């Protein structure tokens, strides 16, 4: 049995990729299981999905903690979390990036395959949705699953959802990625602070979990603790305010679901630490004073 963990952002299709991989393995006569991380998913938030593949029936129903392969759909994630967490020592990471494996820096040196899935997706499908191109890279990098089965699974799964033509285009994207995947070794050296989680004992946990705000060794817990979770990193498009047009009507301030807009000198000011880039403010502004712009991160 081998296990694969997908890292992506909500809306990038990591779950669909994980399920399509399971379908491809099934089409090759194997037994395969796939599931998303059992959590609250939101567009833009870091999310995970999983696939287990074996020659015989898989009975185990636990989550996956020590994968054989890690797949990263969104390059920005390797900066914010240790994607190698739990990866088996001889495991491999497959990353959507323009870099060569040797140029990728991770928490340790590890077998690494890279593919510029975003460019392939833009050229082939016309959208920066990389969840099918990455499947071609998985086929090439792991050698465990044939590209023909990957193509068939994509046509079946994505075709059912998006139509025959779109399914075929996605299959072509996978084939192109298969041909362009580079396999090598990533270098070590990236440091991550160990992820901390507040795990109180029965006696430490306030009755019924009723807490105001609590300072714990893992940071703030309870009311207001979300201030420590800077969700600005989820953004793909950022709202930009044209102060000339802003009349200070506060409609954007009222509608912002994150409370990320403040009125300063009667003008809307966006707090980019928390703005998730949902675009509601742009939609609601009656004076067209807010525009969503493609964000460029360095």
């Amino acid at each position, binding site marked *: 049995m081998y296990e694969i963990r997908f890292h992506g952002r909500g809306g990038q299709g990591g779950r669909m990729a994980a399920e399509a991989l399971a379908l491809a393995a099934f089409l090759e006569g194997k037994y395969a299981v796939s599931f998303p991380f*059992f959590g609250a998913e939101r567009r833009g938030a870091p999310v995970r999905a999983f696939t287990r593949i074996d020659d015989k029936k898989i009975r185990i129903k*636990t989550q996956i903690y020590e994968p054989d392969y890690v797949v990263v759909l969104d390059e920005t994630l390797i900066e914010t979390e240790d994607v190698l967490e739990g990866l088996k020592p001889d495991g491999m990471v497959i990353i959507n990036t323009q870099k060569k494996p040797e140029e990728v820096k991770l928490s340790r040196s590890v077998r690494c395959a890279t593919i510029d899935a975003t460019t392939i997706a833009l050229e082939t499908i016309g959208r920066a949705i990389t969840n099918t191109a990455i499947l071609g890279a998985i086929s090439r990098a792991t050698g465990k699953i044939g590209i023909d089965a990957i193509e068939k699974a994509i046509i079946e799964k994505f075709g059912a959802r998006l139509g025959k033509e779109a399914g075929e285009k996605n299959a072509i994207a996978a084939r192109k990625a298969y041909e362009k995947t580079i396999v090598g070794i990533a270098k070590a050296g990236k440091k991550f602070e160990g992820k901390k989680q507040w795990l109180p004992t029965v006696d430490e946990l306030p009755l019924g979990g009723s807490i105001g705000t609590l300072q714990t060794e893992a940071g703030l817990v309870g009311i207001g603790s979300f201030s420590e979770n800077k969700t600005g990193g989820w953004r793909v498009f950022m709202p930009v305010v044209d102060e000339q047009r802003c009349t200070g009507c506060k409609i954007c301030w009222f509608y912002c679901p994150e409370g990320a807009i403040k009125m300063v000198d009667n003008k809307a000011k966006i707090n980019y630490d928390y703005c998730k880039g949902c675009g509601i403010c742009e939609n609601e502004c009656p004076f067209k004073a807010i525009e969503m712009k493609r964000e460029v991160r360095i």
Partner: protein
Amino acid sequence: MNLKARKMVATGDHAAAYGALLANVDVVAAYPITPQTLIVEDFATFVDDGITDAEFIMVESEHSAMSACIGAAAAGSRTFTATSSQGLALMHEMLPIASGLHLPIVMPVVNRTVAAPIGIWCEYNDIMPQRDSGWIIGFIEDNQEVLDMVLMGYKIAEHHDVLLPFMFGLDAFILSHTVEPVEAPSSDEVMKFLPSYKPIASLDPDKPMAIGTFTPPEYIQEERYQTDKCMRNAKRIIKNVTKEFADVFGRNYHGLIEEYKTDDADVILITLGTVTGTARDVVDELRGRGIKAGLVKLRFFRPFPVEEVRMLIERENIKAIGVYDRSVSYGVGGPLYIEVKNSLYGYDLPIINFLAGIGGRDVVKGDVEKMYKILQDVKDGKTRKDIVWINTRGVKE
């Protein structure tokens, strides 16, 4: 409807919807709730695509969903719905009406924790409080069993010696949102196994009839006895239908319980739900290390397999029994533990309750291994425990 036999890679929710499609249900009335929503969404798609001519009724709550199902079933329709957690709690008032009127409705319940605190993950505190509702209650190990259970469910529930509604629990996310291979038989094969529903009486404008009317004490006690008898009959019918299913479709679910490597086991663990699959792997590994571990998968909580559990104990090889529960009856222990103890009244054998996976916490192999380790220690007289909270911070195991 002419559906060919096919193999698919499907979620548990899809398997449930596809089961209802194959069962050729007439009416579905449902209200969405995570993680059940995919079931009714998928079924609504079947209706929209014209694959089935079933009536899909949108309602304003789970209470109304069950009310509509009761009306449809009373009119002689094969009726289906699905729910979860708070939705099942809201439905609670209508459940004994379905059983009291002997309406064989089939309902998957995606087991999800009931608030407070609010959560969306797996726990059995939604389905266990329905214990005395007069519904048959089953549990599921994998997605294939979800589809198969819908088909067997109608066959059992509609049997004229039973005529009771049928719910079964499938674990939130662990099955509901997980895809795995599922074999679906053709609609022709299903039609042979499960012909149309033949009610003993149904509402008909041409032959007016009153059901569930105001009833004084002169009659209700007898009606309760009837329902009790139906539930007892269900044990026999479940065994027969499971066997017939195995003969037709080749998948044997062994009736009310399934034993796994119990023949020479000195300790056994009784499980329900998806933990069973993980426990199978653990038993194999323990056997590889020379430990005589056995497993019993409980498939039905109502009717409860009292005789089957007793027969296990009659075998002299078993020295200790563990009972896994995914919910707790506060101050007493897990509901399955209570039932097993009740079944084994008069037998002098240690029965240990393991509470794990509450609120959807993952039950990993190590947790199950721990259960078997404790059972070994109990067998060897090193320790004697009643209720063990596995993997609970600050609580000694």
